[in-house]
């Protein structure tokens, strides 16, 4: 701002503060363009600078994607928590086990070994659905987690019971905090669950995993501004209000670029815990490679520098 605008703000500092508050950006956050402060960050290891914020206990992280695929974030969190020694319950609704296993191997984690040791409890939604619909009569003591598919009620109680049982700490092994990972929640709506049932499921999981067991939850959803799927937007908006951290991966507004695959907005919802705090928003651009994702400030991709 220059000229008249600058003078106006000099004389009216209250307006300047109000403007910043409206933008919801703390003044200390660099707006990009400062080359020394923005070395590209990596996702491998716990030093993944932009993504390392969610290490606290009892946190609910929402992964959101618009016009692009945010599943690279799911792969990152899966390998991150397994390497950290946490017990992970992974509800994988859209892809097969081998898909995650192959990607995790590139990121340095062996899913099959983790499953065998009991560190990873993997619910393969596709396989579970086939067992339910084509399998023989189920035993009364072990209802299928995807019970809601065949039945009149659209409740996700069986799925919640599965999550609760798998994350209950057992006496033998001592893993660090439990983690629930869901990929992705929008599929439940496609399968006939009502939006309220999905929100109830998440609420029960939060009480059980975040509050009682002091664990973390990471959930992936799809969304879009011009989406006509109102049920999905309802679920996504509601989850946004209750999340501690939102990682929002968006495709570039100008279309596809080879060197910059998209932009990620990291929103730390400090206002959730303390009334007077503002949410902290950071924006980076990223490029996905075969075994890694690199982050950099906007406009500073390697192709430009």
């Amino acid at each position: 701002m220059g000229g008249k605008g600058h003078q106006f703000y000099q004389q009216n500092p209250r307006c300047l503060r109000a403007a910043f508050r409206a933008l919801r950006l703390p003044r200390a956050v660099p707006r990009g363009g400062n080359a020394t402060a923005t070395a590209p960050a990596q996702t491998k290891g716990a030093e993944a600078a932009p993504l390392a914020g969610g290490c606290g206990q009892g946190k609910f992280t929402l992964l959101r994607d618009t016009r692009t695929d945010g599943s690279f974030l799911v792969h990152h969190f899966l390998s991150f928590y397994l390497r950290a020694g946490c017990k992970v319950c992974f509800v994988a609704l859209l892809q097969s086990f081998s898909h995650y296993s192959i990607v995790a191997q590139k990121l340095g984690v062996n899913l099959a070994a983790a499953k065998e040791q009991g560190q990873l409890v993997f619910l393969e939604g596709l396989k579970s659905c086939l067992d339910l619909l084509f399998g023989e009569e189920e035993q009364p003591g072990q209802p299928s987690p995807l019970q809601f598919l065949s039945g009149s009620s659209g409740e996700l109680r069986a799925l919640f019971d599965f999550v609760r049982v798998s994350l209950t700490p057992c006496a033998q092994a001592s893993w660090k905090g439990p983690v629930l990972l869901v990929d992705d929640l929008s599929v439940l709506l496609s399968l006939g669950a009502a939006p309220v049932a999905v929100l109830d499921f998440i609420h029960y999981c939060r009480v059980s995993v975040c509050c009682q067991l002091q664990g973390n939850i990471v959930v992936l959803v799809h969304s879009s501004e011009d989406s006509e799927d109102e049920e999905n937007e309802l679920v996504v908006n509601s989850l946004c209000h209750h999340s501690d951290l939102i990682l929002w991966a968006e495709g570039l507004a100008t279309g596809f670029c080879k060197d910059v695959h998209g932009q990620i907005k990291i929103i730390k919802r400090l206002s959730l815990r303390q009334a007077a705090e503002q949410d902290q928003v950071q924006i980076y651009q990223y490029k996905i490679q075969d075994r890694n994702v690199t982050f950099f400030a906007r406009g500073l991709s390697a192709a430009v520098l």
Partner: protein
Amino acid sequence: MLNQGRCTYVPALPRRSSTIDDLKIQLETILAALFDKQIHCKSRRDTASVMAAGGGVAVGTLLLIEEDKYGLYSNLLFKYFLAEGIVCGHDLFVASAKEHPDNILKELPAPLLDDTYRKELGDEAEVVNSEDFQDSMKIAWRYQNLPKIEASPTTYTKFGHYYDLSKKMPPELCQSVKWHSFYLHEESSFEPKMKAWNMNSGYARLLQSLQRIISQEGFDGSDPQKKQRNVLRIGIQSLGSVLWGDDVCCSDPPEDPHSLTKFLYVLRGLLRKSLSACIITVPSHLIQNKAIMERVTNLSDMVVGLESFIGSERETNPLYKDYHGLVHVHQIPRLNSLICDVSDTKDLAFRLKRKLFTIETSLFADAWLLLSPNQRILGL
């Protein structure tokens, strides 16, 4: 016009296969041209890096085609998929509520198995090259020195088959493979177990039939005796149309908005656990509830929409005078890797010339030229 079309060369499937993830079926026409950098992609930019995926419909995945308004070109792709299956020796499963599968199989295009097409293709390609690349570029002068994608057949490895749409596939070739059909109006009524599925009965019956074939014929690896494992090509025509008993195409909101998406989810499960690849055509221009199309897109691996110019004002638009329609790529599969979307352009157009069915990116190239060089690099 349609009778003279031929499709491009594609690799055949190797008979011996390893794991589900290693197998790939090379799909002709649009998909080969989309993803295989060697085949008929004419562009003023260097597209070698564009086509990273390397070909076709991977086994275990689903290709969804959004039909064009009159279903002409989507039907063409459907037939090519099945014809390539016959020539490669795969088993077929054809499901339809519109045409009887026997009639569909009688209408498949005949493959050209001799070398006469090579000379014809060479002549055609030379004509194409000399017309467009002789003039020096006035606006796109930066790209003058970039390597061009050659359309000559000598650069190809020897794979795949040409098809001649004016001739039908000989019946003895059709009989050489095992094929299964599902014609909705001839199927018996559904079993009581399916009542609990909460799904449209037509879809439920189709899933039952498919699951039965997959397990009986051993496509899911359940029969350890079978050493020679083959691939099952599944083709489902006009899914979601009224003929399947689903009103998603004629009313908004539909009576059961979840049947179609549930069907796709169960189908995805069946595909992932078996050696099969599936093509589905959906009359998406009739589906009024756009939320359902968004969900359908999320549940499919690859989604391609066809828009033909027949009957629209684009037919007479000079910009589109060389083309018959547009190809919109809505989704590309993410299989076993972190990288999601690497195609450089999604604005493609197709045309059926005398002997070539090509996909071109020149529409996008025109728009690209409007951006300044900095904008192109920064992606901002």
